[in-house]
């Protein structure tokens, strides 16, 4: 579980996060939604320790990040997995080397043990026979799977995903969403996904927080998001033509 208390973050005097307080539960897919520029990525990077908030605290299963010393922070980071928006695979390494990388850095396993684990996670993300390929030789969807495999190979306690299905076709996007949800449940990890894709919200949103201009505007689950009378949330949800048509059809009783 991750507890965030009153996080503030500014760049060059401009406040991007304006006091966010929320909780992300373990074993659930927690979604951060909001329009571009609402502070989603900055919020995620604060939780990853890439940005240091000016005020507030982030607590990981009882351990407050800012209270930890450098070594403890490093240990905590080793328990985090991250799927970046652009996958962020190391382009000079093959798929196998990319996935094996965290194991090589942080474990004392023998090569065959590492290979066994790599193959296990690659199978889990349905990516067989791609071990020897470079990231540039595989599709965007496959790159996302490799990024997920790399993120989970060390069995992290926390999984962060920054727009994991951006740039993917709708079918592949659903596959990636479901994969993340299944992995979250199987491994009982705290997963936080940054997205502005309403399909993801409908597919896997067990807890949703809506950010607007750096504020936490609304939080709830996917069943509540269509009932809310919060104008900003409604505007965001029904900016999708598909959802607008579904709502209109419901109102007409179709």
């Amino acid at each position: 579980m991750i507890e965030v208390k009153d996080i503030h973050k500014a760049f060059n005097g401009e406040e991007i996060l304006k006091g966010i307080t929320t909780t992300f539960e373990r074993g659930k897919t927690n979604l951060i939604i909001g329009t571009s520029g609402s502070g989603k990525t900055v919020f995620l990077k604060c939780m990853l320790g890439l940005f240091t908030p000016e005020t507030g605290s982030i607590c990981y299963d009882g351990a407050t990040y800012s209270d930890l010393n450098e070594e403890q922070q490093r240990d905590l980071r080793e328990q985090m997995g991250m799927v970046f928006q652009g996958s962020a695979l190391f382009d000079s390494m093959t798929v196998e080397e990319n996935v094996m990388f965290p194991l090589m850095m942080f474990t004392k396993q023998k090569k065959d043990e590492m290979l066994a684990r790599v193959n296990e996670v690659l199978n889990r993300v349905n990516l067989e026979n791609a071990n020897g390929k470079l990231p540039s030789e595989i599709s965007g969807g496959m790159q996302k799977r490799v990024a997920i495999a790399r993120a989970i190979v060390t069995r992290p306690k926390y999984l962060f995903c920054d727009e994991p299905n951006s740039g993917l076709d709708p079918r592949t996007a659903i596959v990636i969403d479901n994969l993340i949800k299944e992995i979250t449940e199987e491994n009982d990890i705290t997963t936080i996904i940054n997205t502005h894709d309403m399909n993801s919200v409908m597919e896997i949103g067990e807890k949703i927080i809506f950010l607007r201009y750096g504020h936490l505007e609304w939080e709830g689950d996917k069943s509540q998001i269509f009932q809310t009378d919060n104008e900003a949330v409604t505007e965001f949800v029904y900016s999708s033509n598909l959802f607008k048509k579904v709502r209109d059809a419901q109102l007409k009783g179709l």
Partner: protein
Amino acid sequence: MFYLDDIGRYFLMLKGVFSRMTKGSVLRNLILKEIDDLIIGSLGITVFLAFFIGAVVAIQTALNLNNPLIPKQLIAFASRQSVILEFAPTFISVIMAGKVGSFITSSIGTMRVTEQIDALEVMGINSLNYLVFPKIIAMLMYPFVIAIAMFVGIFGGYIAGVYGGFVSSSEFISGLQEDFIPFHLVYAFIKTFLYSFLLATIPSFHGYYMKGGALEVGKASTSAFVWTTVVIIIANYVLTQLLLS
């Protein structure tokens, strides 16, 4: 103020490079890869440049020796001194600022743009040590490249001088041995060691701290080349003043 800020960040970067070392087995592979990319990959162009620089120096010297009282051995002497003292260490390093420097800046800059450096940091890896330290160690081999450049440069002078009909083989070899001061080699290699450090770290600095997208990677590469060259030229002046005056 802007430059002072950059100089300060450069030294903070160096502090980061030498702290929290990456796992030894991983580092070993990275160093070998960097030696391949930065050193072995530079040999071809270095040999090519050194040969023709040496040849041109020999021809220019020969063509400017109009006085019959000046011995022909001076062609070899001038070629040796020019190649060992300046052309091999400094001129080749300026070329390397373009070749090796832009490679380093663009590879690290691309990693920055594509969030690969963020990925390293999220994993708890000291990205500065992981990315820059192996380059510094690999560049310790750079003096060998310069040694080859010295040899090939003088050989180029020999070929141009002897086969161009400016000087006989025995006169050239005799001129090469004339007034040889071993400290000049020491001076050249002291310069080379400093240049190798500058060649590894200044382009890394420009790549690591760049912001933006693909266009900025190109701008950072250009900027890295300019600044590496400027610092090499200044360092050359300072070291020459300190060591030879």
